[in-house]
């Protein structure tokens, strides 16, 4: 095994880290406080080509691999979890299914503006009564002439409102259960498509989360993604890849909190010496560092397998499970290292701990990841 990044991956890591530290980090706390993302940052990311990293240059992507993409999400999330999920949901949940299942026309029309960052993407799957049980969605799509008519609503949709392009899942045949689910590309502004309430969240507060509402929303039949009834397969494959992005986000949040904790432990003095001189605290830092390294190897392995076109469903679930639980454990300990200061918004570890929690929940809860892993090892 070769545990070494390529020269391009090293340069990408350094570049994204520089960008994140200089441009995003100074704004992260304020964006969290205001619950609003500064889109000038998105425009800068688009200029740098961070909005279509793992897609071919033919579609105005960067033509890089999935490991590069994971490293970029990690580095963004190291300073701002909301920036990490913005890029991750856009790249993995919207651009990917169009890239993998779209027709050439659909790719030209929708994938290109996603890759070059002209447009932001989102995915609409979750419904009030269909979370982990994705097959239970109630949104319907009925074929009428050359159109499909969508009715229903979606909740907890990341990037919603900001996004111009949505990959939405709806049932075209309720009698067939999950085999009756189909995927559609829906543009913001389509009559009958509106936004419900904005969610006020515990963490990743700069990331936009809205309800999507479809009331007799008529979309052209050429916006069917893949075939009728192929939607569930598209969902499952999309989430397998999306998990690498969220695992990378969790890894970045953990790394950021860990570095804060190490830095603070060296300068904070109590009882006449830096708190890092205490063995109890040293052991906490040692555990944090070890968990992060293990998480990184899992995340990079899952991305590597995807790049090598080998099965990666189990590894991406393991990476997501372990990295998100690491993020929660590490950020909690980081707050502990900071003591009372860590509980205030004066220091970023408080935000990082709030941001970490969602990584154990979205794109498949930790429990769902364990289901996926078990299904893979027992099949």
């Amino acid at each position, binding site marked *: 095994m070769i545990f070494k990044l390529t*020269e*391009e991956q*090293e*340069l*990408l890591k*350094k*570049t994204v880290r*520089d*960008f994140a530290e200089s441009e995003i980090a100074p704004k992260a706390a304020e964006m969290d406080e205001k619950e609003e993302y500064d889109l000038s940052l998105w425009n800068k990311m688009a*200029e*740098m*080509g*961070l909005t279509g*990293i793992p897609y071919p*240059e033919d579609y105005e992507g*960067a*033509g*890089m691999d999935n490991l*590069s993409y994971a490293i970029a999400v990690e580095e963004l999330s190291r300073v701002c979890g909301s920036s990490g999920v913005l890029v991750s949901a856009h790249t993995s949940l919207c651009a990917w299914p169009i890239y993998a299942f779209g027709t050439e026309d659909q790719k030209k029309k929708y994938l290109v503006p996603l890759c070059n960052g002209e447009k932001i993407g989102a995915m609409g799957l979750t419904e009030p009564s269909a979370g982990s049980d994705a097959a239970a969605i109630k949104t319907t799509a009925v074929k009428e002439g050359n159109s499909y008519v969508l009715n229903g609503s979606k909740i907890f949709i990341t990037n919603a409102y900001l996004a111009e392009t949505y990959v939405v899942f709806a049932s075209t045949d309720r009698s067939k259960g999950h085999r009756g689910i189909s995927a559609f590309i829906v543009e913001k502004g389509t009559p009958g498509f509106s936004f419900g309430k904005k969610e006020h969240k515990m963490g990743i507060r700069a990331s936009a989360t809205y309800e999507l509402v479809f009331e007799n929303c008529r979309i052209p039949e050429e916006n069917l993604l893949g075939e009728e009834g192929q939607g569930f397969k598209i969902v499952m494959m999309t989430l397998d890849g999306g998990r690498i992005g969220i695992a990378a986000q969790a890894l970045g949040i953990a790394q950021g909190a860990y570095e804060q904790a190490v830095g603070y432990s060296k300068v904070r003095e109590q009882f006449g010496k830096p708190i890092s001189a205490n063995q109890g605290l040293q052991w906490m830092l040692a555990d944090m560092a070890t968990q992060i390294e293990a998480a990184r190897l899992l995340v990079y392995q899952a991305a590597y397998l995807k790049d090598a076109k080998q099965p990666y469903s189990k590894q991406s679930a393991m990476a997501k499970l372990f990295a998100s639980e690491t993020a929660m454990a590490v950020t909690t300990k980081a707050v502990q290292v900071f003591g009372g200061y860590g509980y205030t918004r004066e220091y970023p570890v408080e935000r990082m701990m709030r941001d970490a929690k969602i990584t154990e929940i979205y794109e498949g809860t930790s429990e769902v990841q364990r289901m996926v892993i078990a299904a893979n090892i027992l099949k």
Partner: protein
Amino acid sequence: MNIVVCMKQTFDTEAKIALDANGKINKQGVSLIMNPYCEFAVEEALRIKEKHGGEVTVVSVGGPEAQDALRQALAMGADKAVLVDPGMEEVDEFATATILAKAISGMQYDIILGGFRAIDDGSAQVAGRVAEILGLPVVNVVVKLDIEGGKAVATKEIEGGSQVLEVSLPAVFTAQKGLNEPRYPSMKGIMQAKKKPMDKKTLADLGLDAAQVAPKVKVLSYFLPSARAAGKIIPGEPADAARDLVKALREEAKVI
């Protein structure tokens, strides 16, 4: 318009400097970056190229690790890189400038850019020496540069203000902070950098021998600033403490 940028790889600005057992600067595990002033120079070269066309070549003197900084310049948009490995433990400004000038003398150039100083040794000599060897005019600490009709109009910092100068090309300019805001390499740029030429040369390739570049200046020793002494707290009632403070300032610190 052909532009050559002299570039140096330096320690990261956040690197912690330590000395090893022999009293030399310990380079182990220190992350390296493109000297920030050289980054301004690379950015300016790219802007001139974007406006007037031409080619940007970045040249550096250093070991194999300096390729990382050169590759960053290629990813930003430079066209070619040349790395001369002097194969010497230590080089001085004379040696570096001699090597750079020799490497550049074989190229086509209208403009030569460099950082006005490196953030590590801060000697601010190399670009000026290159200009001297090549017989070119040099304008230092440039904060604005306009190229037109074979001439350059450069604004440079002077004590208490600025000076605007006109100089005919070819000429050497050194970049000061404020000249521009360097771009980040784009992802496409990073992918393209790999395909761009990185020409690695030795002194022999340039027709130089070790004697011609033997350093004229030798570092005798390095030492770190002494640790700051702890502050002193003067206890007591405000009136007494103030009296003691004045006494200490007069008799111990001798500042009043």
